């Protein structure tokens, strides 16, 4: 074959690939607008409404779809991502600015396929990678619940995304690489409880949206193996690794207790997970919590990568010991043993000993309370040390805690602290 012929074939293959890709993108972009809702939908029975309300709790829809101090579900909460800021929309049944004009078909298509009523592709910050698993009847129950809310007139705020992420073509490409609509299927070899747990955890509760790594293009890595929150300031630990947040070795009552009450003697929820408990899991029916617990306890065990141990500089540890003596010892005890029912032990506390120290740094800088729940209505609090301690002092005390009382985790540098502050 001549060189020219080979070049011709290569160009032909290349062109065919381009045409194929354009065709695929075109197909993604060709969803039609659905007609607006005609009339009012049939009235819904109370059981369906209650099921929809519980699903909304399990999905914690309210946390993203409510602005601080705003009307519930009326949108306006900003979600910062590496691609720009996305603004959650108004889900109340208001005609002009909410979902008032949405039919149940349009709502199903949004949750199952990530396509808005007008045919636009939705950003996957709306977790349709996960809600695609919901059964039709449950989507309809959610729809009925949202329609039962008081309508609120609140126009949606515009997203502020960087180019080219603000284009539908970019979304189409993301979907070709990352999104496959798929309904949940029960596994016949597993118990009904396990299957219910899998359905909730993988579906509406979208735990993997945070507890999985994401690549530079926003695609999800191995589910439940841990990942940084979009702003990089919290780490959602691995649910596969018992040394991170895996609960494979925990008694059922403890897993259930942490999801329901937000706090145990030896573990607590902070930051984004406190939000999940406060608005979400603390309100779930016990049977659903038990199902989630069953599924989480039976996740396969897989150890996260742990770097080789490196001892902190002696000077940093000395400073850390001083800071600990001054600010931490009264609550957490001289041996980092904590105080029962109030303050967590720091000795052997896995949340502080993960490869990434960001959550430990967050705890020191921002302090905080466990969520106030029915099971823990008056939580104990930790002061925020942001204004009191320098980056070096925070790094020192974090390093001291990570390397005392048998703890063996890597040192924390002032630069690590500065990145989180």
């Amino acid at each position: 074959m001549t060189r020219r012929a080979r070049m011709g074939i290569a160009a032909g293959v290349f062109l065919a690939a381009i045409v194929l890709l354009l065709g695929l993108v075109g197909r993604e972009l060709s969803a039609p607008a659905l007609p607006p809702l005609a009339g009012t939908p049939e009235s819904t029975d109370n059981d369906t409404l209650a099921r929809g309300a519980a699903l909304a709790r399990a999905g914690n829809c309210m946390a993203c779809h409510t602005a601080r101090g705003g009307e519930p579900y009326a949108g306006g909460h900003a979600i910062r991502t590496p691609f720009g800021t996305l603004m959650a929309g108004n889900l109340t049944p208001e005609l002009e600015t909410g979902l008032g004009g949405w039919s149940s078909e349009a709502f199903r298509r949004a949750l199952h396929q990530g396509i808005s009523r007008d045919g636009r592709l939705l950003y996957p910050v709306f977790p349709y990678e996960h809600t695609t698993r919901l059964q039709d009847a449950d989507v309809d129950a959610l729809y009925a619940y949202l329609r039962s809310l008081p309508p609120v007139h609140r126009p949606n705020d515009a997203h502020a995304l960087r180019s080219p992420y603000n284009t539908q073509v970019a979304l189409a490409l993301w979907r070709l690489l990352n999104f496959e609509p798929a309904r949940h299927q029960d596994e016949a070899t597993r118990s009904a409880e396990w299957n219910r747990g899998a359905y909730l955890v993988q579906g509406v509760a979208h735990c993997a949206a945070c507890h999985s790594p994401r690549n530079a293009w926003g695609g999800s890595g191995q589910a439940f193996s841990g990942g940084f929150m979009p702003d990089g300031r919290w780490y959602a630990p691995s649910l596969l690794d018992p040394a991170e947040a895996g609960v494979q070795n925990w008694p059922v009552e403890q897993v259930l207790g942490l999801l329901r009450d937000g706090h145990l003697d030896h573990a607590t929820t902070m930051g984004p997970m406190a939000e999940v408990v406060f608005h979400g899991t603390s309100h779930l029916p016990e049977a659903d919590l038990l199902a989630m617990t069953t599924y989480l306890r039976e996740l396969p065990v897989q150890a996260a990568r742990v770097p080789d141990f490196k001892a902190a500089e002696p000077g940093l540890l000395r400073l850390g010991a001083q800071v600990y003596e001054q600010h931490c010892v009264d609550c957490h005890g001289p041996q980092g043993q904590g105080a029962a029912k109030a303050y967590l032990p720091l000795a052997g506390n896995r949340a502080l000993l993960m490869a990434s120290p960001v959550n430990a740094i967050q705890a020191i800088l921002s302090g905080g309370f466990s969520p106030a729940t029915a099971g823990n209505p008056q939580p104990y609090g930790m002061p925020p040390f942001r204004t009191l301690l320098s980056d070096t002092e925070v790094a020192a005390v974090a390093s001291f805690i990570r390397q005392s009382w048998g703890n063996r985790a890597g040192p924390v540098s002032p630069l690590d602290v500065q990145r989180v502050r």
Partner: protein
Amino acid sequence: MIRVLVLTALGLFASLVSAQSSHRVPDTLAQRLQACTVCHGAQGRATPGGYFPRIAGKPADYLYHQLLHFRDGRRNNAGMSYLLDHMSDTYLRDIAAHYANLDLPYPPPLPPAASPAALARGAQLVRQGDPVRGLPACNDCHGVRMTGVAPAVPGLLGLPRDYLIGQLGAWQTGLRKAFEPDCMARIARQMAPEDVSAVASWLAAQPVPDPAHPQAALSGPMPMDCGLTPPARSRQP
């Protein structure tokens, strides 16, 4: 004999282990609220020279409303909002009642940093207001001793000057809000910058009377319409 020795040894070991692991803290609200002390001082009394306000002894509803404001975004302080983000209305009420019931002596104020003319203007605004600018006297709402009025109007003494200026400025720019009708926002927007400075300097230079309890009720009607109760809906999960 061996059994006795072994049991004794075991007992000693157990008591050693428990001595090391027993660390107890009081089961009280004060202990739960240690998180507040880093900024607001032990027992919530703050310091006269810094920025952070005292919270001890202020009227309970006032404190409760401020906690709601921080949690729900009508007051802006990222640290406060973060601490309160996952608290129920009930717990916020408990916290407010705890600080409202504290009865603490206050340190004497710092010497005033303003000119005598500015202090005189401040005193005039507090006691008489300024009818030309449409400003009522502070005393009319905050009480004759300026220790506040139960249940929801705060006392303004024992607060750092910088904090007072910061709050009036935040009201002027809309960063701080109260329930509607937001009378303090209207008042603050009527104030000239030199009035803000004068009134803050005078207030910060006054000693806190002992006891510092808020007045039980106002003797006359308030000079303006003020939103002193939350609207019906609050973000309760």
